């Protein structure tokens, strides 16, 4: 069992409240996943800049001179914004791959959570309320975001085992369920050059979607592919830079509720995750159909 929440804003006036709304939704889903929690939030981009979200178990030591060291290696200006065990590194977009290689050298214990123009990912072990407080999620603004509360089944309760997973620029995936053919796909996707760092089944799902989109599929087409190629139970919620998608496996035993108003599209594992959203009383509320792809983009 896990909990998923997602919020895709159509109304710009809600953007400053995105973090607060998502945090409330996330904390409501604590019963479904008290082990760990995470959130991917899509903010606004500065042109030509990329963001790398990194995590360290020794943040004080690792983050102290990281911006300076990385900047020197890349020959470019790097800004670091620390939030507890995470930090967002802002650097020229053209230097992302170089930066990933440099980070592995400079700071081998560092985990790269995500890279992209707008995405930031924060995830840790602990109660969702505590995780949200550590990163001050409620203060974050943005255009859309996805959150996950985890009750572990497929791999250990660690930061690496927490969702969301990001395997491509500005892409992320959260998952409720368990995949049964992930080992096979992990081997195949690694051969295809995808970066998969954990033993977790969901990360393979994320890499699968990244692979599909690298080969020209739209988000919707990638999700259609998942229905054919991934075996097991899943309710997936996916984020891209400008999109938000949902798909459930054909058996659809993992719960899902969606709500749409003129202001937003929202997803919750249960309806109670949605009850504090503005205008929910008048929203169109429905259960996504099995084996049916839903996606929105701006």
């Amino acid at each position: 069992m896990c909990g998923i929440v997602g919020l895709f804003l159509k109304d710009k006036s809600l953007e400053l409240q995105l973090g607060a709304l998502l945090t409330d939704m996330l904390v409501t889903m604590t019963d479904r996943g008290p082990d760990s929690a995470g959130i991917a939030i899509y903010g606004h981009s500065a042109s030509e800049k990329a963001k790398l979200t990194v995590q360290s178990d020794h943040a004080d030591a690792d983050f102290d001179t990281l911006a300076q060291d990385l900047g020197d290696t890349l020959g470019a200006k790097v800004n670091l914004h620390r939030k507890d065990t995470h930090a967002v590194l802002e650097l020229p977009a053209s230097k992302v791959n170089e930066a990933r290689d440099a980070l592995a050298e400079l700071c081998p214990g560092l985990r790269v959570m995500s890279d992209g123009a707008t995405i930031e990912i924060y995830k840790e072990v602990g109660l969702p309320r505590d995780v949200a407080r550590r990163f001050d999620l409620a203060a974050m603004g943005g255009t859309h975001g996805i959150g996950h509360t985890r009750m572990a089944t497929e791999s250990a309760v660690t930061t690496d085992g927490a969702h969301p997973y990001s395997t491509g620029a500005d892409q992320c995936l959260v998952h409720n369920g368990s995949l049964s053919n992930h080992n096979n796909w992990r081997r195949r996707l690694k051969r295809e050059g995808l970066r998969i760092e954990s033993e977790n089944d969901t990360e393979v799902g994320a890499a699968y979607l990244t692979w599909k989109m690298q080969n020209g599929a739209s988000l919707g087409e990638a999700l259609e592919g998942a229905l054919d190629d991934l075996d097991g139970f899943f309710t997936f919620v996916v984020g891209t830079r400008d999109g938000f998608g949902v798909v459930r496996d054909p058996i659809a035993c993992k719960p899902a509720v969606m709500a749409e108003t003129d202001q937003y599209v929202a997803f919750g594992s249960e309806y109670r995750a949605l009850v504090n959203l503005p205008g929910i009383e008048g929203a169109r509320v429905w259960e996504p159909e099995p084996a049916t792809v839903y996606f929105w983009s701006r």
Partner: protein
Amino acid sequence: MQSIDLATAPLREMNATLQAQAAQTNATQWEILNPRGAHAIAVGLDAPIEVTVRGSTGYYCAGMNKQATVHVTGSAGPGVAENMMSGTVIIDGDASQYAGATGRGGLLVIRGNASSRCGISMKGIDIVVQGNIGHMSAFMAQAGNLVVCGDAGEALGDSLYEARLFVRGKVKSLGADCIEKEMRAEHLEILRDLLARAEVDARPEEFRRYGSARKLYNFDIDNAAAY
């Protein structure tokens, strides 16, 4: 009308209060305010009381109901009226998966759609759905009636025993050992009574009846492919 507001009253207190009503209670009318998708609302009731839940509920609303009438003005989450023994449960909106599962008696009315596994393993409950139902509904259903005014999803009535299934719309596919059967006068009478009790405006003649081919009751090597 007695009122319990879940914005202030704890859920367990609300259920304990409703469960404590005796058969001869004078407090027969109750309303539950601010359900906000909470789980296990109005479960295990055993008195002829009427409970109106004003809003939408989470998992297992009105589970194990006996005698009571529970009316949800919004939608219901998974497992509504699970294992109901008697009484009536009415959902004005939609119901999530396994509505009325294993129910032994009483009437469950869903004014919207019900999703997958509606009436799974039903054992005597009557279920009337005004909209559509999802896949694997009435799986291993043993007794009772499932009436669907809209369409039914894949594998309706798989491994069915003696429950009667009535569908007005299209059936995407029938499950193993479920077949269409002749609609006889006694079935039209059962259907007319259920539609009237559910206050659904539909003509029994518009429905088709489905039931068990009774080939899977006992293991038969010739049926191995169907298991």
